């Protein structure tokens, strides 16, 4: 009798243990899922309230890389910065190496960044735009000549010039443009230092070996980050308040909305971070959740160093389902290789006009979106 009771007790305890465990397992599983915001994000978190701006549309877009080679020898460039005191030193105070560089253009280590853009509006009008002015005037004049830009500047066919940011390789070559078209309308981001405005007015900075013999006489617009700056229907600039090395502040980049394709982002250096840029576009521009193409410098591994966190950055790209990536300049060859390996749609170039590798959309290469 005692044995029977004992057996019954164990049985009850086991049964209640199993019942409890079943309940606990369910509670544990769904409790963890509920607490993990990534799984039940949509159900648990309030919907994101977005204030989307409709920037309009354009019919098509043609992007031509004039120069993406900002300097030719990374070690020489880094050595110049190091000798001057490091990455926080004012760029106008650094004696940049201009002679005796084997890999350079005629021995000069300096090149520059500039992109030519043709945007066809819905009414058929084609806007001609220059993004950035490069660095080395000799190199930039040669490239502008080779790509037929000089002619367009002389005949005032270029509608306006956009300066993405004040960095030397994007801005110090300004006289290569102003010599041919001093009245060109120009957009700069808020954050330009006085030296930048002085250079535009014709001041020289002998220490940095930079000068401008053709003062800017056209309209100068300073854009800020408070709103999406719509320049024409389907063409906008987004400005970011971002501190950048070599004492520069602020950067802006293009957002085009191409009919039947979607949003196309065109950057200079993208110091604001490519993911931050895409997020900002998603949160502020209608249709920004689907980015069709990204072109320009993505600033991930400009000096060809790699940090494991950059792998996450490449993974994050998938979220935006970008259809075309024409990267170059400060993106980093390692980044481009890893993107290609991760299956991202990298458009290859032709490695001409001193562009080193075809993994970049290089000097003289085009990306047409229409």
């Amino acid at each position, binding site marked *: 009798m005692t044995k029977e009771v004992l057996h019954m*007790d164990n049985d009850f305890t086991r049964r209640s*243990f199993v019942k409890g*465990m079943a*309940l606990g*397992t369910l509670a544990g599983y769904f409790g963890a899922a509920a607490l993990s915001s990534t799984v039940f994000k949509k159900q648990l978190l309030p919907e994101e309230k977005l204030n989307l701006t409709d920037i309009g549309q354009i019919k098509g877009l043609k992007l031509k890389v004039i120069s993406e080679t900002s300097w030719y020898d990374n070690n020489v460039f880094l050595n110049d910065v190091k000798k001057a005191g490091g990455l926080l030193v004012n760029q106008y105070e650094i004696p940049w190496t201009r002679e005796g560089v084997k890999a350079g253009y005629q021995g000069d280590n300096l090149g520059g960044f500039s992109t030519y853009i043709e945007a066809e509006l819905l009414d058929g009008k084609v806007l001609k735009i220059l993004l950035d002015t490069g660095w080395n005037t000799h190199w930039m004049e040669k490239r502008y000549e080779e790509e037929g830009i000089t002619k367009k500047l002389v005949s005032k066919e270029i509608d306006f010039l956009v300066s993405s940011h004040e960095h030397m390789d994007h801005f110090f070559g300004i006289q290569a443009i102003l010599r041919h078209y001093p009245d060109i309308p120009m957009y700069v981001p808020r954050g330009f230092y006085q030296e930048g405005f002085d250079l535009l007015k014709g001041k020289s900075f002998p220490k940095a070996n930079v000068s401008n013999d053709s003062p800017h006489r056209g309209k100068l617009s300073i854009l800020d980050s408070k709103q999406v700056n719509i320049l024409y229907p389907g063409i906008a600039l987004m400005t970011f308040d971002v501190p950048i090395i070599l004492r520069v502040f602020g950067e802006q980049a293009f957002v085009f909305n191409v009919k039947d394709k979607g949003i196309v982002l065109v950057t200079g250096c993208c110091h604001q971070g490519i993911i931050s840029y895409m997020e900002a576009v998603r949160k502020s521009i209608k249709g920004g959740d689907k980015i069709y193409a990204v072109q320009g410098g993505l600033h991930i591994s400009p000096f060809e160093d790699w940090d494991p966190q950059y792998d996450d950055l490449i993974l994050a790209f998938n979220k935006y389902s970008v259809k075309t990536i024409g990267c170059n300049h400060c993106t980093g060859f390692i980044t481009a290789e890893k993107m290609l390996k991760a299956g991202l749609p990298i458009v290859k170039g032709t490695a001409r006009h001193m562009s080193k590798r075809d993994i970049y959309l290089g000097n003289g290469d085009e990306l047409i979106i229409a």
Partner: protein
Amino acid sequence: MAEEKNVQEIKAGYGRGVLVGLFVGIALFMLTYYLLLMAK
């Protein structure tokens, strides 16, 4: 007296079950989450 002891044992068994279950449930969730992430 024996009946009271029995009820207590049942309760204790249930409680232990819930506790173990919670751990198992969380572990299962973490496993499925990891597998889903890997499969992506």
